[in-house]
């Protein structure tokens, strides 16, 4: 499965599709961190960035999963020993690529975006949110990939609408009905992130796992 993961990442890089997501990410973080945030605002600024990069990670994941032609996906599934492993390798490749992209955003933020590194507890919470943002992006990207939605137009619209719905719903009292990204930001702004992290992480993780389970279930009939 690792060899297939490497194959898919290699195809994504060699096809140059990765540059679309990379350039977009660089543009976004250049704007986000155009001026250094004042001391004391580190957690808020880094949390805001974690939320804003989610659509880019979703696009990157979708793009990586769509790089492999359908017929090659069938051959890969046979070569690797089954559909489930092929599916796992695709998600792992998308996750690994997204981790690199989000690490770039975090590194840029720490070096050029904030005036100091947050305290250990806050920094651990921020790192957790970056992990959850990565998982959210991968899930959204997988659910809008070609294997699930054949039409590129519908796929990209669903990706963007999905993120917008996530933003709107998580700004409401029903924030627990989605990955509560706005609640992440609100908690960071009110210095409650570390206190609310277990609740927010549990809700976020649950929705991501549910989304990935839906993806796996839909892939049974969408090879």
């Amino acid at each position, binding site marked *: 499965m690792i060899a297939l993961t490497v*194959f898919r990442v*290699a195809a994504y890089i060699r096809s140059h599709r990765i540059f679309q997501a990379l350039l977009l990410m660089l543009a976004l973080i250049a704007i986000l961190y155009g001026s250094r945030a004042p001391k004391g605002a580190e957690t808020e600024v880094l949390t805001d960035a974690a939320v804003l990069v989610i659509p880019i990670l979703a696009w990157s994941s979708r793009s990586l999963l769509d790089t492999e032609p359908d017929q090659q996906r069938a051959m890969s599934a046979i*070569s690797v020993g089954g559909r489930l492993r092929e599916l796992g390798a695709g998600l792992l490749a998308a996750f690994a690529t997204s981790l690199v992209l989000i690490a770039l955003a975090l590194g840029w933020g720490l070096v050029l975006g904030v005036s100091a590194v947050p305290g250990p507890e806050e920094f651990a919470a921020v790192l957790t949110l970056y992990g959850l943002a990565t998982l959210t992006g991968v899930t959204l990207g997988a659910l809008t990939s070609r294997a699930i939605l054949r039409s590129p137009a519908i796929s990209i619209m669903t990706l963007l609408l999905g993120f917008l719905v996530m933003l709107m719903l998580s700004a409401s009292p029903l924030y627990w009905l989605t990955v509560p990204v706005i609640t992440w930001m609100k908690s960071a702004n009110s210095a409650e992130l570390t206190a609310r992290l277990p609740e927010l992480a549990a809700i976020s993780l649950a929705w991501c796992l549910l989304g990935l389970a839906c993806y796996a279930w839909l892939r*049974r009939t969408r*090879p």
Partner: protein
Amino acid sequence: MKDVDAHLDPGDVIEVAGVNGAGKSTLLRLLAGLTRPSSGTITDRPAVVGFAPDRFPLEQPFTVSGYLRHMSRIRGGARWEPWAERLGMAHLLGLRLGELSKGSAHKVGLTQALMCEPGLLILDEPFAGLDADTREVLPSIVTELSEGGAIVVASDHQGGLRHLPSIRHWTVVDGVVKEGTAGQRATVRVDLPVDEVRSFIARMRDEGYRVHDIVTEEQS
């Protein structure tokens, strides 16, 4: 597919025929494990399956050797070089997949399917676009695999494997698989009451069978 009931033994070579849209590709995908049957089961499929599609996907950013190296790693380090040599691909290894002709691309598909020493080899139109040399080599490769105990199932419009002595012929018609011996005919003697002869002959002719002379007990 409906009412498919078949048993394949090690060494079997199956030639699958049928018009376009009859269900051949669906049958191959079911056998390969790519599609799960909506009802019924396929059991005891060999652990290692090789699959060569009718159209190899060329839209991939690799050279031929780069692609085969990746496939080899996915197959746990399978050796692809001997197969590439045997299929006459030495001059293609440095080319990008997108630069290949249909026949050359087909060879890449065959190589990735053969490199793993499959227990079940699925070939979808294996002779399509192949050059004369490879067309000659492929039946002997299939024979070797069969003698080694592999099951080979090939959808083949061109009849390239037809002369193999142990081949079994399947015909797919509207999702139904019929087994027969294509190209060869047999005469069956049927014993039935005289008063049913007319309707029996009419029924057989309606179904497309040739009916020869009628022999009654008095005549014989």
